[in-house]
């Protein structure tokens, strides 16, 4: 039997599909393609793909149908949503509904490779986690789930509402486990605005991998955690407390909170 491809890319645009195939080949991934949602759904039904990259808007269907199909199949396929700027809200919504990551189009080679790299690692960790649960080795912990009063954007960032009305923003441990150790960190400044689902920081790791961090909510930065600038490893060590990134005055939390997943739901 023919070996299944590592990645399935679903997009109605031939150029993008070709580019994804070429780029992924750089990191030695094999890629299967589908040029419309229907073919994509058929392929998902018949094969197993660890990673699926899907456009959100296609003439004959949308990324949410793909997401539903993957969920139904109960296989551990990680979904990356590719989307134009016009549908950032859709993308955030897809993270809420279970997509692992999304990548805004147009993207560069580095951006795509970094994302695929992270999602690939995510798959590996989740696979191990499954084994551990099966083998009931409870003492082995692969990542720390976020505290119960936190809310998270997909598997990437968390936010925590402080009593003063401000909000702390930081990284989820699972995200940190999918990237290499941070070599350099690029942060926004105080008074800058951040927007939900739009990059608010980037971590530069080994092999020039540049990971863009998506803001979990919109707002204005009132404080930047200066200690992590000099000591990025703090985020890896204590992502939920000392390793916070920004303190933010939220702009639209009542609206945006519906796309955030309460961390308490992870602890069942």
């Amino acid at each position, binding site marked *: 039997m023919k070996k299944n491809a590592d990645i399935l890319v679903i997009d109605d*645009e031939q*150029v*993008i599909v070709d*580019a*994804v195939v*070429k*780029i992924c080949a*750089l990191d030695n991934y094999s890629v299967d393609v589908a040029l419309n949602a229907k073919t994509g759904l058929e392929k998902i039904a018949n094969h197993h793909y660890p990673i699926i990259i899907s456009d959100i*808007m296609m003439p004959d269907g949308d990324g949410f149908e793909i997401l539903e199909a993957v969920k139904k199949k109960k296989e551990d396929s990680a979904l990356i949503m590719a989307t*134009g*700027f*016009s549908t950032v*809200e859709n993308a955030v919504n897809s993270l809420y509904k279970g997509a692992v990551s999304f990548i805004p*189009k*147009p*993207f*560069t*080679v*580095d951006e*795509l490779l970094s994302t695929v790299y992270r999602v690939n690692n995510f798959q590996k960790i989740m696979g191990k986690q499954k084994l551990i649960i099966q083998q009931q080795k409870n003492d082995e912990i692969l990542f720390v789930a976020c505290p119960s009063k936190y809310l998270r954007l997909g598997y990437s960032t968390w936010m925590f509402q402080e009593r003063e009305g401000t909000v702390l923003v930081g990284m989820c441990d699972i995200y940190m486990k999918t990237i290499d150790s941070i070599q350099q960190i690029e942060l926004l400044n105080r008074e800058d605005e951040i927007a939900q689902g739009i990059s608010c920081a980037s971590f530069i790791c080994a092999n020039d991998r540049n990971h863009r961090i998506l803001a979990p909510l*919109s707002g204005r930065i009132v404080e930047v955690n200066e200690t992590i600038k000099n000591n990025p490893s703090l985020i890896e060590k204590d992502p939920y407390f000392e390793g916070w990134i920004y303190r933010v005055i939220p*702009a*639209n939390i*009542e*609206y*945006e909170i519906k796309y955030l997943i309460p961390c308490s739901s992870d602890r069942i």
Partner: protein
Amino acid sequence: MFNKIGFRLIFVVAFTTLIIIGVFAYFNVKSQSSNLISEVERHANQLGETVVSSTRFDMMLNQRDRIQQTINSIGTQPQIRDVRIINKFGEIIYSSDSTYINKMVDKREESCYACHAEDKPLEQISITERTRIFRVHPDSNRVIGIITPIYNEKSCWNSDCHAHPKDQKVLGVLDVSISLAEVDKAILNSEWKIVGFSIIAIIALGLLIAFFIRRWVSRPVNDLLNGTLQVSQGNLNYTIKEMGEDEIGKLGTSFNNMTKKLAEARMQLFQSDKMASLGRLAAGVAHEINNPLTGVLTYSSFLLKRTKDNPEFQEDLKVIVRETIRSREIVKSLLDFARQSVPKKIDADINEIIIKAVAVIDNQLSINKVKIVKQIDNNLPKITVDSNQMEQVFINLFVNACDAIGNTGGTITLTTQKISLTPFGTTQIKKATCRKRHSLIDNDYKIDGMPSLKVKVVSDGKEGMVHLDPVYGKHRNNFDVGFKIGKDAKYVCPDCNNSLVLENKTCPKCGAPILAFEISGEGIYEVCSSEGSNWEKWDSVDSAGLKEYIEIKVTDTGSGINNEDLPKIFDPFFSTKGQKGNGLGLAVIWGIIDNHNGTITVNSDLGKGTTFTIRIPFIQNR
């Protein structure tokens, strides 16, 4: 000509004057002539008496020649036509006109009739009864005749001649006729004078009234008429020049206000329509461009990665990648403009948003020496808006104001207040469905730029499409389907053929069936299906009463916008800032305000400054 209001007024006034002066003149002439006649009468009577008494002596002496001579000499006087003495038997015995002498007078003649009407002659009659006015020929002058009876007296029957017996009371009569030619001439003269005066008065009055009507009524009414014609032809920029403080002047002013409001409303609608299509276009373009751009970016960055050991290529490829990333940002800002997503609305204090926006551009304000004057109503209620978007609106407006002011310094005045406006004639139906939720909005047939409501009509086996005005209260409906719509016509949804007619209810005005549309979230809109009727009802909008808005004004003392640019400033990619701006700022603002169901209008005086007025309804359910 008689259709002109001025002419009618002049006609009515002239006619009334004619009647009044005519009646006055009639009675005046009449009383004047009767005065004259009675004067003549008195005069003639006196003359009669004089003749009788002056001939008495000669009669006594029976000197007939002398009597005749006296009468002749009296008769030669110019006004006197004839002097005659008639005896008891009706024989003319003396006359100034000798041809009549010895002629008999018929008792039934008009001059005799007064006394001889009865069988027995009357002996004492009043002066008026003795007087008669007559014409000898129908075309000759009028003549007044007066009979003076000659009574018997003692000296007569005692006289030697014994011509008259004692028992005879009246011996004869003296008949004096005086020509009324002079009097008639005088009367005619005064009649002519009065007629002439009347004509002059009427003409003068007519001219005077014509002059003032022209000045106060015709000319302004013509101006107004001209204005309405211009407006009906679509020229909403037409303004009527100042016409004073009277009612017509006020009408003119309110007409100007009306056209201004109309022009603004049309501009809003036009802009709304244009923005919607531009938004769709921009989103479509951005989406379409995004894919090829992804190709360019991925392949160029792919090459960049693969040619790491070739610095020559690296430089050039870096430029490609950098510029493609720049294009990506442009597409992003285009999409910011076109963003069709619903605003993320929360309850917010508009004053706070404004203050926040001022704080953001505080630096630029102080660099440009711009002073901010806040005239803020502190009791404004919170309204449901996307505070980020609204903040962006104000920041953009302030930045524009700063640019308009330049380096010379100036003032930006911010005003917030609560206002109320009526919904009738302004509320547009944007979504309407049949009972099966098929949309009845027809984007292909627009009424005044807005998509109409479509209804399929089936009558006598023919089918057609009726288009209804989407603005509540305007009734610019189009029932022209190419055939006559019968009374038993069916009105159905074009998609599912289900009836749109409301059961158990007919139009209270004309009894025709009522069409009902479901307006999502806003109840049922009902409208009469008859072409002539203007009955319509929309309970949820009616019950809402006056719509309340928050009005925000941003006024700067900058360079202003010239009139040609004014209609274009909300267009995307229109910029007066040259390289500095991308021409999307005001277009984005417009989109945001439209998404809040608000309106934004601009007023500008070149060289004096610009005012932007934003109105946002309190209730954001539409």
